[in-house]
């Protein structure tokens, strides 16, 4: 078990934010940082995934581990995330169907795009296995599967040249924005909610920046110098989101995606805002960690076990939505739902670590 650190802390923070934001309409939604900026917790989550890959594919002394081992390591992780997505989708559909039956309310079947599954299970079950059928709010893990699946390419290219890795990644990002490349949804029409061709840039950025941060004093100096710029970007983001100012997709010039704030495509506006958030908040952990020890321990615990906590969180937020629906919501219900949910996330993290401690250690 790792000691609490900034990466796990922020990842735990992103997990709690995603959990709250996935119970739409609840009282606490307005207190999450997602409401006060252009980018949100999803960006943080993917960026930190790239950062963690950079750490995981090096040995303790900083030398890169053998390329083959990195590839297998990420392949194993891809399988793990895929398994989590399939399990979580099945359970979510069961929760939706069960609630519709118990509450005698067929409307629930249409929720979150689940109607497709119940109307057409034959195609949908194939789509579920192919990750092209996604429920609303259950679309981050499919992105994650693709990103970790292609991460070996990023890692191996970056070993030859970090500039080349970043350049290729940025070229793919730009081309996807200009030509509107995305993976298709099926069954049904449309495309993935999180476009992997665009979002891969954030994973690459996380990966490359970790390396720069480790090796380059100039990089660390510049991130400190640019702190005021980060604060400025964060402030602009607050103003824009509070006053709901955003580009009108029918008024911006072509190619449209270069100018809008669309989450699906991680458009440049969102990317710039996220980089500003990074600059502004990078020093925060060192300042607050000594003062909020308990919270740091808790959030780092969530962050260390992010896949299990995320999976559990997405199911808990679905259950939370159903509870809000059936009881009519309200501040008390919201407090109970959010409070017990966060405790349950903590228990999930604890359980995963307890189980791995109990498990027989793999030999060799």
């Amino acid at each position, binding site marked *: 078990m790792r000691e609490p650190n900034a990466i796990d802390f922020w990842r735990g923070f992103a997990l709690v934010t995603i959990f709250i934001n996935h119970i739409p309409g609840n009282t606490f939604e307005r207190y999450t940082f997602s409401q006060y900026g252009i980018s949100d917790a999803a960006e943080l989550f993917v960026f930190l995934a790239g950062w963690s890959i950079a750490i995981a594919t090096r040995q303790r002394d900083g030398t890169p581990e053998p390329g083959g081992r990195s590839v297998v390591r990420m392949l194993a992780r891809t399988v793990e995330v895929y398994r989590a997505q399939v399990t979580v989708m099945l359970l979510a559909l069961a929760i939706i169907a069960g609630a519709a039956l118990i509450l005698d309310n067929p*409307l629930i079947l249409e929720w979150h795009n689940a109607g497709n599954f119940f109307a*057409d299970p034959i195609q949908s079950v194939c789509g579920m296995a192919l990750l092209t059928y996604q429920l609303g709010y259950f679309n981050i893990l499919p992105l994650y599967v693709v990103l970790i699946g292609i991460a070996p390419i990023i890692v191996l290219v970056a070993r030859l040249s970090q500039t080349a890795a970043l350049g290729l990644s940025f070229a793919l990002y730009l081309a996807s924005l200009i030509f509107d490349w995305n993976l298709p949804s099926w069954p049904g029409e449309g495309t993935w909610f999180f476009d992997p061709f665009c979002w891969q840039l954030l994973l690459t950025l996380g990966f490359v920046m970790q390396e720069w941060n480790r090796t380059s004093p100039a990089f660390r100096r510049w991130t400190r110098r640019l702190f005021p710029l980060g604060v400025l970007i964060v402030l602009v983001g607050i103003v824009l989101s509070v006053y709901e100012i955003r580009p009108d997709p029918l008024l911006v010039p*072509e190619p449209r995606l270069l100018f809008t704030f669309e989450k699906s495509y991680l458009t440049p506006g969102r990317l710039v805002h996220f980089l500003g958030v990074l600059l502004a908040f990078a020093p925060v952990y060192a300042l607050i960690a000594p003062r909020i020890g308990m919270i740091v321990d808790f959030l780092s615990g969530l962050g260390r076990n992010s896949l299990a906590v995320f999976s559990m969180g997405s199911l808990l937020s679905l259950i939370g939505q159903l509870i809000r629906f059936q009881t009519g919501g309200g501040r008390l219900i919201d407090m109970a739902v959010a409070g017990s949910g966060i405790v349950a996330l903590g228990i999930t993290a604890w359980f995963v670590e307890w189980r791995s401690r109990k498990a027989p250690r793999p030999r060799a």
Partner: protein
Amino acid sequence: MPARSPLCLTGAALALLLAGPPARAQDAVGPSLECRVPNSQLYTVAALPAVKAAVAGKHALRLLAVGGSAAPGASASYPVKLEAALEQALPHVDVIMEHRGLPGEIASGAAERLRSLVADADPDLVVWQVGTHDAIARVDPTAFTEALDEAVGWLKSHGIDVVLVDPLYTASIAGDADYNRIVDGVRGVATKQGVPLVRRFEALRYLASRNEKGESHILGRQFRLNDLGLRCMAEHVALTIAGSLAQTAAIPTAQPKPAPDAAAPTGTPPASTVAPRNPG
């Protein structure tokens, strides 16, 4: 004057529907027997200038259907059925249909997603099933109504017509105050923005009351009614669009008299009702 024919035919079909024998009406745009609901309980009409311009100008109608499921199962034939029903109601018009699910709440995020869907599809008409997600998520009805009003206003400001479809009816939720406020909210926005509304909630309530002793469903009566509602929706939407188009044609003449005058203005839509289209 080829431009006239579709609208004249629509008018004729509608006249048949309103006055003619049921058998004939069914051949045109009328709902099938199981879906039949008195018009007053089914929809409110309003002008559809962009649709009219598209139909008159290029004999093609780009339609973006938003919300609901799209898979080709029982409910999902909806986009296909709507396209067929519309092409029947508007002969000589090529209906180009796009359908997109819109999971999520209008009051938090889905309205933004709608904007990008619209920018992608570049439609003349958006048929929007709206409100069910927000109702189930217990979104504050006022916040929902404001967000919907803004979204519909945005569509209209770009010269895109909108037809709203309010949430489904089911017995276990019919008495729920918040749910009814969402349904009322959709109606309020339709009235305020002057867009046609398919009153699916009322229509299904009517069908529910009529079908007390109807066939049963393996999962219970509510589930059968839900299937019926999804099956009928395409027909109800097509009827609403046809009815609204007929009214749009009649707008320029102060008091539309029967046949000859009603046909006259169809060739050239009045400039005031055709909003300019922004590029992009």
